[in-house]
């Protein structure tokens, strides 16, 4: 094991061109030609060399390299979870993937070259002008430093630390190391191991005791090449009595430079703290989105995941909460939309580990065309505990004949003093409903999107205003293509 020190010179970039970095936005929309040069590039394929390279570029401390190398071993040793998950996972070619890109891209595409329908989509979604260019890949750097430093200034006055993962581990090791990789151990699953080996980007946040952060912290403001990356790592710690909301993603179709996105997000809510984590993501149809998200809630603490997944080829994501202290509360509210050729395999995990803990799961999925949604839930309440409660509700909406939905709730609730409530429903938008709405003057597409928006309406209300408006428009756009 060799230590990489900050002074060591960096290896030359392995390649300066990329096969298909714009597997973007809408593959059918037009032919992109796109070429980028990367200042730092780990090349394709995954080996110890790749991991060492990433660690050296980031000038990491030896313990982090150690952590990465150990993770790589675990990743390589672990089989694909295809004994329970879809065989489509076998189509990921790990040798073809680019594991690290840093800043310094010079995109060659101009705004004029961006296909009209993509521009139109941005318009319909109300994406601000300057963000459109970034999302379309015209600008590599999202010019929002002003907005970001503003928020950073405000919260740093309260003692909040809000940095990226590299900076977090470098500048505040004593703080972050304590929880880093603890909520989600490296070997939790094959993809958490992968992330642990090659992570870069993501946010590290610490909110001091009793501090209530008034405005949501947004990853949106912090988009740069790294955060747009595939293997971001986020750790949020809310100290005793602290409160914070974090939002990531945006509803605009995401220009993706890679076909594999595998993030790890860990949340730690100490005694009486509250963390709310909101995700709205719209991946392009070639992306494998395999994300591990988990939070731990100590006594009287609350962790709440609001998760909205649209697009991607395959999403596997089951946000979880470990209810570790008495009276802790955990909640997962999720919306998944699977269009043609897409598979949303989502759900939630609630691990009760103390008395008087409560958890709530509401999952809604929409399958359009040949789209497929799967709900997987896990609720665990051991019999040694008392007064624990879980409520699980999963509702699926099928739009066409060929769409498909499956539900796999695993609820292990022991002990007579605990209670669990489970409801599941599968519904369809009926021809009669569509006719009824069309009879009032709505086109078939409008009728369909209204019905779908109605189906998710009670959950969308929980989203911050600007997200819920965007989400509605996004559903409209998705539904337009679904009707003949």
């Amino acid at each position, binding site marked *: 094991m060799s230590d990489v020190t900050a002074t060591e010179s960096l290896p030359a970039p392995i390649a300066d061109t990329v096969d298909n970095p714009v597997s973007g936005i809408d593959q059918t929309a037009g032919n992109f030609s796109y070429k980028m040069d990367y200042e730092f590039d780990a090349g394709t394929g995954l080996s110890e060399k790749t991991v060492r390279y990433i660690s050296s570029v980031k000038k990491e401390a030896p313990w982090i390299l150690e952590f990465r190398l150990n993770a790589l071993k675990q990743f390589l040793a672990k089989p694909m979870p295809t004994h329970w998950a879809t065989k489509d996972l076998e189509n990921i070619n790990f040798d073809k993937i680019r594991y690290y890109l840093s800043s310094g891209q010079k995109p060659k595409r101009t705004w004029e070259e961006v296909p009209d329908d993509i521009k139109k989509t941005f318009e319909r979604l109300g994406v601000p002008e300057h963000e459109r260019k970034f999302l379309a890949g015209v600008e590599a750097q999202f010019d929002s430093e002003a907005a970001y430093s503003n928020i950073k200034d405000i919260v740093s006055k309260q003692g909040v630390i809000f940095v990226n993962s590299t900076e977090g581990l470098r500048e505040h090791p004593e703080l972050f190391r304590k929880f880093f990789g603890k909520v989600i151990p490296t070997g939790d699953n094959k993809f958490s191991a992968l992330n642990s080996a090659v992570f870069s980007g993501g946010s590290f946040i610490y909110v001091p005791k009793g501090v209530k952060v008034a405005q949501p912290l947004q990853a949106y403001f912090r988009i740069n090449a790294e955060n747009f990356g595939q293997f971001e790592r986020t750790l949020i710690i809310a100290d005793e009595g602290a409160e914070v909301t974090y939002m990531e993603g945006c509803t605009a179709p995401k220009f993706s430079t890679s076909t594999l996105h595998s993030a790890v997000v860990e949340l730690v809510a100490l005694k009486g703290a509250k963390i709310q984590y909101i995700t709205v993501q719209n991946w392009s149809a070639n992306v494998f989105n395999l994300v591990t998200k988990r939070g731990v809630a100590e006594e009287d603490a609350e962790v709440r995941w609001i998760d909205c997944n649209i697009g991607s080829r395959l999403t596997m994501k089951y946000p979880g909460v470990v209810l570790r202290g008495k009276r802790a509360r955990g909640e997962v509210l999720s919306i998944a939309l699977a269009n043609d050729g897409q598979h949303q395999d989502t759900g939630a995990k609630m691990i009760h580990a103390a008395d008087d803990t409560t958890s709530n799961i509401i999952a809604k999925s929409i399958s359009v065309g040949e789209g497929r949604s799967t709900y997987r839930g896990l609720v665990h309440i051991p019999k040694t505990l008392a007064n624990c409660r879980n409520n699980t509700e999963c509702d699926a909406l099928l739009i066409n004949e060929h769409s498909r939905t499956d539900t796999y709730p695993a609820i292990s609730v022991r002990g007579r003093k605990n209670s669990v409530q489970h409801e599941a429903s599968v519904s369809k938008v009926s021809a009669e409903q569509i*006719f009824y709405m*069309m009879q009032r003057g709505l086109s078939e597409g409008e009728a369909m999107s209204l019905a779908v928006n109605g189906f998710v309406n009670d959950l969308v209300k929980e989203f911050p205003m600007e997200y819920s408006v965007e989400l509605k428009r996004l559903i409209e756009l998705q539904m337009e293509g679904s009707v003949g």
Partner: protein
Amino acid sequence: MSQLEIKDLHVSIGEKPIVKGLTLTVRSGEVHAIMGPNGTGKSTLAKAVAGHPSYTITSGDVLLDGKSVLPMQPDERARAGLFLAFQYPSEIPGVSIANFLRAAIQARLGEGEELDATGYYKRLYSKMDLLQIDRKFTSRAINDGFSGGEKKRCEILQMAMLEPKFALMDETDSGLDIDALRIVADGVNALRSTNLGVLMITHYQRLLGYIVPDHVHVMWDGRIVKSGDKSLALELEAKGYDWVKNELVPA
């Protein structure tokens, strides 16, 4: 002045003929009542005119102001001025009455035209007050968990908001209590005075006491077999459909 002409209309469901050559013309401001036994094809007629995709028009035509509506999609027909008050209105979970009607009105505006939200709500509330529908209903999902009578009132509210040229009212009276019947009738009469033409399907003479029809037609086995003025409805009520049936038996 508008007119809705139904000309020798034949409608099938699958292979089965239901409406078998029906002719009828409704002009602005007129109220035509259609009465007839269960399963005669009254609802089929109304839905076929509105463009329901399960109903095949095998021959005949439906003209709105001289122009055939048959090539038009249901939503185009609606925007052209045809309204169907359903016998069994659909429930649309999660879609509030306010949002639904707003979308429906927006759909009638031109490209780039935006609905004036304040004016819209003002109008919505005034129509609701008129129909004595609690304002709280604006945020309730359309017909979701509504009582039978509430659904029917909600249909009339939509009609009042959308201001069609012609309304096909399919048993709007069934399920309404006596007070609601009068309220709904007042609403329809008010619209009638502004030139709405109505084709009213009903089983009961009572409604016709409130909304006095210009013409009454008896439908039997997919056809109109007898037409007359409002007295026909009274006669029917007194004698029952057997009377019509007996008249039909060739002498």
